[in-house]
Structure formats: C-alpha cells, structure tokens
C-alpha cells in the first residue's frame, strides 16, 4: 500500500518509531564558553584540534563525535549499518573524509544548516522501513571554514552587520536504532524549498523564517495537533532577527502561543558578540545532541519538535544576484 505512513501534505509517521539510543556533541571554544558548555561531550581548546588546517579539524570533529556517540553504547563503527551526514563545505568534504576513516557505509547529504534534521529524517525512514538496524545521523560545521568559503578572508577587517550570524564550530551525532531505550522519533515533516526573494547573505535568519514557519504550520496541520502540543518547538538557526520574524508569522498563520525557541539564540550568551546568533549545521546538531536530548532524558522536555533550517544558496548564486531559497525539516522526538 503506497504512502501508508504519510499524513496530510508533507508528514510521515512511523509504525515503529526509531529510538535515539545514544548521541554526542563536540563544540569549539566559543560554544564551550556559552551557557551550555557543561552539556557537550567535548570542547575544543582551539579551532585547529591538533590538525594542520581548519578543514581537517572539521572532519576530525565529525569523526570523533560519531565515535563518542557509539562509545556510549559500546559499539564500534563496524556495528553500524549506515552513516548519514553532511556539512557546509564544498562537496561536503568533512563528511566524506570522516566516512572514509569510519568505514561505515555512507550517504552524504547537503541541506545546508538543516542537515541534522535531514539526516535524522532519512535515518528514521530507513529504520522504520526495516532496511537497517542501526543508523548514525550526523552534521557538523566550523566557523572558520565556513567564513572563508562564504564570506571574507578571516583576517580582513570587516564590520559585521547586526543581523549577521556566527557559524558555530560544532558537530552532533545521533545513533538511531530500530529498538532500544531512549527518546523515540515519531514522525517527520519534509520541508518545501521556500524563497521569499531575500538576497541578504548577512541576514539568513530572516530569509529562513518563512520556511521554518511553513514547515511548523504544515506539521501541526498534517497531524491535527494544537500549537502547544510540543513542550518545545526549536528552530535551527534563525537567530534573534529571524526568530522575531518567525514569532510574527506564527500570529499571522494562527499558530497560537507555541513553546518556541531558536538554537542559534540559545547557543551563545548575549555578551559573546555573535551578532544575531549562531548558525551552521553544527548549531542545531550540537544543541540537540547536547542540552536538548539531555533535558529529554531527565524528563524536563517530553515532546520536542526540531525544525532545522537551511539557506540553500552558494557564493556564486549570491554574486549573480539570486535570492536565497530556504528549507526547513521538522523532526518530532518524544519521550514515552
């Protein structure tokens, strides 16, 4: 029976919700100084992580994060059926290189900063489809590799726009298993690419807010849920500017008083000079795999909707004056 698990327009629910049995997060020094420093598994001393280049540091971060997550279940990479991972670098090299070292069958993903939700969604579908037993979903980003690829050379004296965001140096990995103990992944809403004609690469939160709210609205409608069903709806990296726009859009779309926060706002202290907040694949990945899942484990959050948001442009399309297409995927995680 085709589409038996599909609900409404864009949502699927699982017969046997896959379980998040273990997770790990590794973050950079700046993220470690933020309000959640204690909740991450490892905080880097510097941005090179003992490597020659930032790119190598990024891939090492991803590799080590996956290993840490597996360690918590006393598993080795060969016990895992599939690795789903992505990052922001051209040709997603950080993930490719990490997969080379881990020797886990690998599918690389690109969803810009929405990658953590994308990898979780796909992993959960593959598990509920009975294809695999154990899948690792992961994502990472590195401030300096992203900065040099998308913006200016790092040592050029450039004033940041107040709406600009700070790409997080962070990696997160989740071990999804067909059965086990831990929070369950109940359903996902795969987002549409939404483009509201925004071109400001220094204000991606504003461009992405529309996609985030569209996905949240669709998710709630598809499953006939009230807007306060979730204890926390958390967007990936809208930052302060983007999340204030999202709040206005909630009103416009009749999503009444959701328990809404944004990972980009949560990740740093106000005093850390990060502009509008954090961004990057690692931003939602480390918040999920650090503080948020910990809170779920303690029972402080029972129902979480992670809505990771991604801006799908490249420096080339920006130079050519094209607007920023955006996407958001929602992942519903619930503690039974």
């Amino acid at each position, binding site marked *: 029976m085709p589409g038996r698990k599909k609900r409404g327009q864009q949502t699927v629910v699982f017969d046997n919700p896959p379980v998040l049995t273990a997770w790990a997060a590794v973050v950079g020094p700046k993220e470690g100084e933020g309000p959640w420093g204690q909740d991450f598994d490892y905080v880097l001393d510097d*941005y090179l992580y003992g490597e020659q280049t930032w790119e190598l540091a990024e891939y090492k971060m991803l590799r080590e994060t996956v290993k840490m997550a597996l360690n918590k279940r006393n598993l080795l990479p060969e016990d895992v059926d599939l690795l789903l991972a992505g990052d922001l670098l051209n040709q997603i090299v950080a993930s490719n290189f990490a997969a080379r070292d881990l020797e886990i069958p690998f599918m690389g993903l690109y969803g810009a900063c929405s990658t953590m939700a994308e990898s979780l969604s796909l992993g959960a579908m593959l598990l509920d489809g009975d294809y695999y037993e154990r899948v690792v979903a992961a994502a990472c980003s590195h401030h*300096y590799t992203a900065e040099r690829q998308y913006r*200016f*050379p*790092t*040592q050029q*004296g450039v*004033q940041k*726009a107040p709406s600009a965001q700070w790409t997080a140096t962070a990696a997160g990995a989740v071990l999804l298993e067909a059965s086990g103990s831990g929070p369950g992944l109940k359903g996902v809403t795969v987002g549409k690419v939404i483009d509201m004609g925004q071109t400001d690469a220094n204000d991606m939160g504003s461009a992405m807010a529309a996609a985030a709210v569209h996905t949240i609205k669709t998710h709630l409608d598809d499953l006939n849920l009230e807007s306060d069903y979730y204890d926390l709806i958390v967007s990936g990296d809208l930052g302060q500017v983007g999340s204030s726009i999202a709040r206005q859009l909630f009103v416009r779309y009749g999503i009444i008083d959701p328990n809404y926060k944004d990972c980009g706002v949560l990740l740093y202290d106000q005093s850390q000079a990060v502009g509008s907040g954090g961004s990057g694949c690692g931003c939602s990945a480390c918040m999920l795999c650090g503080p948020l899942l910990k809170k779920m484990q303690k029972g402080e959050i029972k129902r979480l909707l992670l809505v990771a948001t991604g801006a799908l442009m490249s420096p080339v399309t920006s130079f050519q004056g094209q607007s920023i297409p955006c996407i958001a995927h929602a992942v519903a995680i619930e503690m039974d």
Partner: protein
Amino acid sequence: MVPLYMAFLVGGLLCVIGQIIMDATKPTITPGHILVGYITGGAILSGLGLYQPLVNLGGAGATVPLSGFGHLLVQGTLKAVEQKGLLGAFSGGVEAAAAGITAAIVFGYVVAVIFNPKG
C-alpha cells in the same frame, strides 16, 4: 607643510563618507566595493582636476585614503603623457604607484610566510 589637524579632518571625513555609504546600503556595498569605489572616484576627480585642491588642503588626509591612490595613478599618467605621449598613458600610472603596489605584494607575501591566520 600641511598641519596635522588638517590631515586628521580631511582623512576622517573621507572615511566617514565611506561609512555612511556602507551602512546606508548594507549589505550591497562591501569593503571590496568601497576600495574600488574610492580608487575609481579619486581617479575620476583627479582627471577632472578636482582632487588636487583637496590634497593641497589635507595633505596625507587626501593622499593616504585610497582615493589618493587613484589620484596618484592619474597624475602619474598625465605627467608621462606630457613627456612621452601615447606610451605615457600606459606607463605613467603604474610608475607613479609602483612603490605602493610592490610594497603591498611583498609585505603581503612575507606576512603570509611568517604568520598563520588566527583562530
């Protein structure tokens, strides 16, 4: 000799104009655009004979900003045209600006060899 305070005033004002342009047009105008805009603007004003009075007034306040670099290129070209004609149009600018350009390339290279980017 141009007094120091005049250099401060003229140089400061030229920078403020750049700041207003950047802040008013964010994010369209980047520092790269400012660099190009100043050198082009300085060169055009210089060709029209309008930049020299600013240099007389502000000294380094007008020559240190990149518009002064454009002025230097154009004045070098014009001088060479007087001496050599058509060939001067092609040789004069770079000759006048040779020291600055070479210094930037060489110091840039040396710094890149010695230092590593922070972070």
